[in-house]
């Protein structure tokens, strides 16, 4: 029987797809958002359950600016406006709520993220956000220029064609966006590395350990928390922006609370409070998810798993179940994740 199973499984496809996804733009965007969350949660101890708010701010800020054709529809200005929007969100979350207890901050951030998402969906903002339909092609309405085209065609230095081999073969557009995505991940990680080895980073970690101790030593805790929220938020907003490059559209479904918890899983899997954690976490996360999904799909298709237990259209849910299991079990048995330091992993934020 077991031999039979192995005969049915396309091992090359299994690993190929999983590897492909683990280096995809999607993995890069999750890593990027996790780098931002890492500064919030891993280093500063802020329980930000509204990561998607920053991603949505970046994506929508950029897309609205561009589709409205403001200031001549400049792409760089559009991206900048996405970032500015994220800063505004950080300030409006941070100014009133950073003095709250950790679990209250968690509830506040998740609620603010939902408020933002529901507002974007609203019929009243139809002209700007496209309401529930989103902005299916991010196109300058005056000049009829598609955002994705400018990024992936006009600005693409790579010659047309396919690169790589096997399941790791990408066309020039995908490759270009992958390069942008992973470059941003590297840049952001470098930034965090530089910050965390400085005296600034020392204060940030001290705030995670004990706010009052930091205060008693003359550190303006509130100001540092706000700085952390803004920097991490801007990094996460780039995750939203790159996701929009990749998909070519924005819509509110991309920014449901579950995306926040995907990013939490990525961070905890890789290891909070470590520089490599978000990167290793995202790559591993997508490898595991796609590997298991594909394995299940092949097993269901070949009749190895009877329909009564699992049908092929249920397989997408398995992704969420796996995420849930990973989040819960890692928290219990390996809070330091794959590459984090054990000594720094126990969370005791009050």
């Amino acid at each position, binding site marked *: 029987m077991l031999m039979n199973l192995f005969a049915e499984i396309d091992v090359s496809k299994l690993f190929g797809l999983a590897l492909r996804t683990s280096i995809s733009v999607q993995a890069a965007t999750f890593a990027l958002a996790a780098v931002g969350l890492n500064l919030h949660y891993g280093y500063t101890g802020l*329980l930000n359950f509204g990561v998607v708010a920053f991603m949505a701010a970046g994506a929508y800020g950029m897309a609205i600016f561009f589709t409205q054709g403001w200031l001549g529809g400049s792409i760089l200005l559009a991206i900048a406006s996405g970032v500015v929007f994220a800063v505004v969100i950080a300030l409006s979350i941070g100014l009133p*709520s950073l003095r709250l207890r950790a*679990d209250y901050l*968690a*509830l506040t951030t998740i609620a603010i993220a939902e*408020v933002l998402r529901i507002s974007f969906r609203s019929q009243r903002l139809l002209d700007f956000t496209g309401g529930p339909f989103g902005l299916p092609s991010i196109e300058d309405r005056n000049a009829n220029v598609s955002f994705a085209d400018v990024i992936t065609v006009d600005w693409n230095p790579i010659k047309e064609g396919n690169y790589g081999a096997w399941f790791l073969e990408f066309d020039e557009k995908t490759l270009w966006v992958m390069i942008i995505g992973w470059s941003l991940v590297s840049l952001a990680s470098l930034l965090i590395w530089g910050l965390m080895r400085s005296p600034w980073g020392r204060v940030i970690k001290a705030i995670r350990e004990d706010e009052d101790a930091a205060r008693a030593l003359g550190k303006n805790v509130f100001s540092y928390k706000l700085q952390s929220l803004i920097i991490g938020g801007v990094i996460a907003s780039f995750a939203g922006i790159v996701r929009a490059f990749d998909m070519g559209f924005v819509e509110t479904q991309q920014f449901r609370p579950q995306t926040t918890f995907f990013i939490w899983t990525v961070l905890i899997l890789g290891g909070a409070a470590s520089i490599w954690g978000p990167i290793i976490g995202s790559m591993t996360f997508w490898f595991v998810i796609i590997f298991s999904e594909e394995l299940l799909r092949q097993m269901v298709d070949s009749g190895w798993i009877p329909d009564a237990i*699992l049908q092929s259209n249920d397989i997408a*849910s398995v992704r969420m179940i796996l995420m849930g299991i990973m989040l819960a079990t890692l928290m219990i048995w390996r809070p330091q994740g794959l590459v984090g330091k054990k000594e720094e992993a126990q969370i005791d934020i009050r």
Partner: protein
Amino acid sequence: MVSGLKVGLLVALASIGLSLIFGVTGLVNFAHSEMVAFGAVIALLLESTVGLNGALFPLAVVLAVLAGGGLGFGLERGIFGPLRRRKMTNISLMVVSIGLAFLMRYLILIYHGAEPETFESFRIQSGVSLGPIELPAKDYFIIGIAFTTLLMVGLLLQRTKLGTSMRAVSDNPALAESSGIDVNRTIMWVWILGSALASLGGTMIGLTQVVEWQMGEKILLLIFAAVTLGGLGTAFGAMVGGLAIGFASETSTFWLDNDLKFLIALAVMIVILLVRPRGILGVRERLG
């Protein structure tokens, strides 16, 4: 207006457990709303598959409530109790509960399916008039059950030994322990009671609307809003908060777009957390 009252009662029913559990353990349980969905799905399963429909339907509700209590027992005995004794912090446990919520939600999706369903037993009903109000008969049933249950929970908390223990543990676990209350046993009963109530709330919500796998996700923030409004950790606060939130979000459609009705609840929650995090009925934390 009556539908506002009805939704309010149901949100209150679903919220008490979350508040009680927070009160005695300090855990913000993100999986609580999945217990609401769980109750509804179990009742539906009993009705359609086992055949507890028509006059037997109340039995399906009772069994669903028992199953909910059993789930609460299982979660405390199997997961949260042991982890608490391992000295895991409430923040870590909160993250565990988030993982658990996704696990439960998507297991429900796989076994219940993506299609919303309604209970057969009360599908079509003509209105029954009572004074100036005309309602389907099931609404009297729902309002009656919800109201009676809330009243009984209130009595339980105020008048029984178990209720007193629950309030004592909620107030000060160390003091409760030293005055001879079995804290772990009390916490266990809180989980059972809270989950059973969530299940009941779920079946009732299923009766008024539909039973679907996303029920939990949809009601989660409503419950959080209710509980923070009333004051985290106080059962009566959850009742008042639930009524207020349910009422506000139902009646807001008079002056706000339908797709924005959740915003009211969320806005209330954010404002309360910022301005008066202990809620309207919560007491100020004592300073050392």
